[in-house]
């Protein structure tokens, strides 16, 4: 029996930003179903790493594979299996929350009824704002819209860039719920945060990104073995 490929496999990954190397020689394997936190100071390369996995940035050297698919040569395969929550933005300000979500889901190849869209927005506490243009949203509300979009994506790998930033306590609870959902549905999560205290207990591993490379965090000595049974999925 073939073992299914790991969710993430970075092999000697290096990525330039402008003229400088932000990441150099990152080799990392993340098995399916793990929740992994990337922590490190601003500018350490966390976002760059996530964007490489999301196919937004090509590796300058080395390779990145998602579920066995190369992020450059098989970008389409990777895109249909990943979803990314950016630090901010991702929505069109002159469209309403519901229109933004509808556009996103249709681009994912899904067709949701208006009531399903309403429900998805209510799920992140945006029930009252669904028909309002996003330019009137606060940054926290925009982030919540991003969470709704992420949940709708037919993805097996979630890339969350500073998911807690800009959110109030209620909003942060939605992120926690999202992580629980990921755990129960066997999704793989890569979460970047410069304040990992909140997520460390939920995570299978905390990795530290600094100086262009990735190490196991010494501050958070989380065991590398899964905390609990990860659903085994075939293929």
């Amino acid at each position, binding site marked *: 029996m073939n073992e299914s490929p790991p969710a993430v496999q970075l092999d000697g990954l290096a990525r330039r930003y402008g003229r400088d190397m932000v990441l150099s020689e990152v080799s990392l394997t993340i098995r399916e179903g793990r929740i992994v936190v990337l922590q490190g100071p601003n500018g350490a390369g966390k976002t760059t790493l996530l964007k490489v996995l999301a196919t937004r940035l090509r590796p300058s050297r080395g390779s990145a594979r998602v579920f066995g698919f190369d992020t450059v040569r098989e970008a389409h395969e990777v895109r*249909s299996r990943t979803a990314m929550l950016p630090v901010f*933005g991702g929505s069109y*300000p002159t*469209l309403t929350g519901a229109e933004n979500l509808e*556009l996103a889901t249709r681009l*994912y*190849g899904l067709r949701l009824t208006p009531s399903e869209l309403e429900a998805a927005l209510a799920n992140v506490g945006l029930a009252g704002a669904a028909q309002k243009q996003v330019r009137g949203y606060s940054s926290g509300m925009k982030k919540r819209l991003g969470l709704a979009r992420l949940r709708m994506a037919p993805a097996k790998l979630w890339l969350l860039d500073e998911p807690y930033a800009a959110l109030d306590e209620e909003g942060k609870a939605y992120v926690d719920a999202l992580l629980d959902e990921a755990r129960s549905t066997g999704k793989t999560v890569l979460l970047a945060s410069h304040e990992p205290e909140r997520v460390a207990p939920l995570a299978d591993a905390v990795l530290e990104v600094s100086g262009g490379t990735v190490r196991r965090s010494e501050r958070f000595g989380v065991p590398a073995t899964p905390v609990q049974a990860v659903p085994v999925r075939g293929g």
Partner: protein
Amino acid sequence: MNDFTPVLLIAGKDIRQELRSRAITVATLFFAAITLVILAFAVGSDEAILTQIAPGALWVALAFAGVISAAQSYAAEGEENAFEQLLLYPIPRASIYLGKLISNWVYMGFLALILLPTTAVLFDLPLGSHRGALLLTLALGTLGFALIATFYAALTANLRARDSLLPVLMFPVVVPILLAAVRATTSLMQFGNLEMASDWIQLLAGFDLAYLVVCTAIFRFVVDE
């Protein structure tokens, strides 16, 4: 999902945004109109000369406005980092180009439909009897501009000095469009000569077809980072 669905979704989204914000309309319509007026002033009050340069003035105004509208349509994408997100959906990159091409073409076509009668009045040049061929010239000419503008605007969207860079890159490529469109318009409006116009219209169609293929094929390399 049909491969053309995302194209229509993106074009529809652009047009809906524009209907709400009118950002491009405001930025281009008055600009183009002012360009026409300034050209008319610059030439003077000799009506024979005014009539002669009318088609040139029309297409220069359209070309300038087309640059602004294409740049603006990517600026709207960048406002909330939406373009970053757009690039992550499991859709072919070419569909992003084609979607934005359609919306840019629609704006330019709309602009052309307003500027044509404006030019006719300001420069005292009647529309002539070949209205169908004139519309075809407008359609193919604006498509040519939109093809190149949409392509290069994506290329310059995240470069320094993009505002002045876009016309510098794009105008040498669209010279044939400008020339052919002006000549076709002149033949139709000034001389009422359909036969003379048809050569130029064919050049427009050939240009559009060639660049539609080339730009669609290599667009993904423009947005890849």
